[in-house]
């Protein structure tokens, strides 16, 4: 392995947005905060957006009460570390208020019985709202760089796909028919649609279908704003202004998830710029080779940890299929979901040169 000549913080210093992807339970949120901290140490005004931080981390970032508002966590030299949490429900409400054509429409939507359910439990809502929020922060001139934490792997892909999926949902023929009464020459189609809806009513109950139709009808006129925003975010995510980092740990399950994620990203033509592997077994030197079969537990442990470190580095390097630089972060015992943990990792992000695998 050779040094890449750059730290992770340097690699992303010309980006406006950094998206952190990876499996659950690998310290992704802490790493995202550490990347933002490291950018702040390069005199940037950095904001980390967390999706679902553990309580302890949320309080370390001063998010325990504030949530959706961006808060200044700390100044780092000339830079600033800001943090905000994604509140999908509040963001959705804001979006409705922003794009609605009248206050009556706002009331009609927010008052719909399905709305509450939709904003809290619809899978994908988090992702749509994350991208909406991301764009707001991108346009906010208080920040130079936005670091986004995402939900674990599979939903993270949803996150990147959200603009497209929202677009295609809004373009759905049925959806259009539901929100706009068709012109007279399309009436036959509408009859057919109504017949289908009647069929569905038989299964799910007429009341539910009525509510759903009413809900979609109440959205008439708003969908253009939604779609426009979706297109803008789609463009932004694919541009040079956005960097993608895959964060994982060297255990088999997260590794194979991360590699699945990386190959799906490749298929979708999204470039992964860097890889961070947390929880690498620390370096305890090279133990002498053992010939005796009855080895003392202390030596056995030394051998095991040394072998584990070699395995950790190997499995991590395999992930860099496109020759991306990798940052290895040694396992830190004890809790890292606090400011001390963030600072410790930020130091590595800001000062340790990344490695190039296979070189």
């Amino acid at each position: 392995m050779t040094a890449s000549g750059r730290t992770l913080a340097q690699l992303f210093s010309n980006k406006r947005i950094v998206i952190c992807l990876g499996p659950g339970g690998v310290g992704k949120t802490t790493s995202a905060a550490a990347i933002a901290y490291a950018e702040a140490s390069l005199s940037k005004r950095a904001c980390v957006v967390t999706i679902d931080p553990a309580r302890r981390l949320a309080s370390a970032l001063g998010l325990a009460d504030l949530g959706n508002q961006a808060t200044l966590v700390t100044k780092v030299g000339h830079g600033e570390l800001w943090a905000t949490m994604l509140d999908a429900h509040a963001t959705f409400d804001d979006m409705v208020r922003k794009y609605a054509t009248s206050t009556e429409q706002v009331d009609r939507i927010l008052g719909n019985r399905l709305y509450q359910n939709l904003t809290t439990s619809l899978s994908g809502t988090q992702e749509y709202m994350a991208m909406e929020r991301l764009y707001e922060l991108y346009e906010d001139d208080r920040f130079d760089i936005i670091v986004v934490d995402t939900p674990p792997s599979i939903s993270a892909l949803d996150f990147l796909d959200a603009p497209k999926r929202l677009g295609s949902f809004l373009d759905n023929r049925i959806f259009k028919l539901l929100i706009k009464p068709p012109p007279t020459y399309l009436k036959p189609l509408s009859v057919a649609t109504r017949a289908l809806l009647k069929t569905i009513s038989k299964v799910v109950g007429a009341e539910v279908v009525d509510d759903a139709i009413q809900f979609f009808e109440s959205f008439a006129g708003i969908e253009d704003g939604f779609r426009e925003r979706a297109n803008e975010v789609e463009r932004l995510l694919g541009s040079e202004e956005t960097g993608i980092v895959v964060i994982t740990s060297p255990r088999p399950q997260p590794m194979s998830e991360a590699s699945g994620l990386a190959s799906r990203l490749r298929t979708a033509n999204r470039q992964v710029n860097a890889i961070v592997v947390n929880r690498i077994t620390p370096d305890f030197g090279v133990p002498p080779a053992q010939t005796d079969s009855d080895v003392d537990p202390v030596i056995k442990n030394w051998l095991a940890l040394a072998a584990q470190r070699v395995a950790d580095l190997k499995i991590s390097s395999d992930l860099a299929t496109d020759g991306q630089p990798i940052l290895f972060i040694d396992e830190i015992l004890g809790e890292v979901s606090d400011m001390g943990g963030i600072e410790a990792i930020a130091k590595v992000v800001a000062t340790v040169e990344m490695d190039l695998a296979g070189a």
Partner: protein
Amino acid sequence: MLNTGLSDEVLAITQGASICLVTGKGGVGKSTFSRLLANLAARTSKNVLLVRLSDFTDLAPIDADASDRPAVDTSPEISSNRGGYRVMNLEPKTVLIEYLIDHGLGSVASKLLSTGIINVVATAIPGIRDLLLLGKLKQLDATGDFDLIVVDLPASGHALTFLTTPAGLLEIARVGPLRTQAEDVMAMLEDHKRASCVIVTIPEETPVTESLELLDSIRTRTALKVASLAVNQILPHIGASSQPIEHFDPDAQKAWDFRQQKFSSQMQQLSRLVDKFDETVVATEIVDTPGGRPDTDQLIDSFSIIKHRSANP
């Protein structure tokens, strides 16, 4: 319910319920534990089913053993395998089609799907997919074919949504077949003989805290019985040294120190769980499998019951 084919340790984990929902955050070994539980049960029963909710599970293949996975992932067919239990992968779409056919709408099912109308309705009523999956579990249980159905649930945030779906739908659907289905599923989740759940975690501070929060949420927001906690990735015991630690190379001492510290912090986290939870607690040790995943025997060897609570007769 016929649980006669199951051993005491399996019953301690499930508390005698015939459907055992396995839940936990991503990356804690939830799928591995589901497989372990199915294997354990299959040692004494020929009627064990492992259900995976394929639309939700992670991208990674769950098992090293390819024979464990049915050839067609999306098929609701049950497939046999070498572990002695059967596996079913459930996908919302296939369950939905089955539901439509059962309700006499088979002829229009494909039209409903191809026009996208189902998507529009299902998007507005998000719980409908979860409800149908739960309904399918209920139906599998009602066949009486299985002593135990182990269900590998999605990661905990989703799991809670999944479990609270029926109650949510009861508020939306005042009448109609959907309501009946929601009521039936609620009754199933509330019946401790029929359903219980296991929360899987690892012995680290944040995962343990989140598991205790999940435990609390399940208990306050649902009537589902939390039958046991499973703690994965415990460091295996490697014995004590015969010599004073100072006799070894300083690097060996540091490595030993690292392990001891890690182990004692694991024990501390384990006792947090044991202190706060009165039911069964089980643990599995890390299995050393260079480059692969543990096989069935290794899995079962790694497993031990920390706190045993017998299932009520």
